[in-house]
């Protein structure tokens, strides 16, 4: 599992509330990613980070923000959760000597927005 944990693993929240998901890695990898997985869409990149305090947007970043204050932690925040953000969220790290190479995923967080 490349030393990746995600918390919480399951969450139910109400529309309009803020939600923060945490990704933690133990192997000091530079690159970390947040994806969402929805039926018929595969995995879509939300945000990624290439170092402490260095982040960039992916293809579905609207409504999400991220922070990385330590190498090991990458936080995803839904500023005001909506039902369209009901999804399974995966964190990933990129492990390899090149800029991007083998990517390994965490176990996922299932988020339900009611």
């Amino acid at each position, binding site marked *: 599992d490349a030393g990746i944990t995600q918390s919480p693993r399951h969450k139910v929240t109400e529309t309009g509330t803020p939600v923060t998901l945490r990704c933690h890695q133990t192997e000091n990898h530079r690159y970390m990613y947040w994806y969402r997985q929805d039926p*018929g869409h595969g*995995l879509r990149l939300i945000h990624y980070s290439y170092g402490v305090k260095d982040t960039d947007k992916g293809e579905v970043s609207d409504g999400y923000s991220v922070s990385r204050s330590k190498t090991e932690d990458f936080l995803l925040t839904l500023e005001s959760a909506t039902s369209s953000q009901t999804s399974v969220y995966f964190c990933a790290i990129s492990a390899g000597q090149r800029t991007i190479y083998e990517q390994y995923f965490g176990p996922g967080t299932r988020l339900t927005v009611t």
Partner: protein
Amino acid sequence: QQQVKQSPQSLIVQKGGIPIINCAYENTAFDYFPWYQQFPGKGPALLIAIRPDVSEKKEGRFTISFNKSAKQFSLHIMDSQPGDSATYFCAASGGTGNQFYFGTGTSLTVIP
């Protein structure tokens, strides 16, 4: 716009058969093409990957075929087993960005 197009959406084969999953891409800057396997309730797991300087790569029963001129690559699973039943995703990355682009997935069922 889907950067990587994957087909078929689902596939059913008999044990011992050779399922083939296809992917196509447009961005010629892509230079890394991995395949992931995902079981229900789990995160995707890297299965095998190829770079465009080779046309084929084998790891165990899994083979990637790569056609650079057609901008297509495919996954073949030899002697498929019921334990191979999972969802498979292709992906591509490279160029100036640091992003991976995924196909929409193929649900494979191997019947005993």
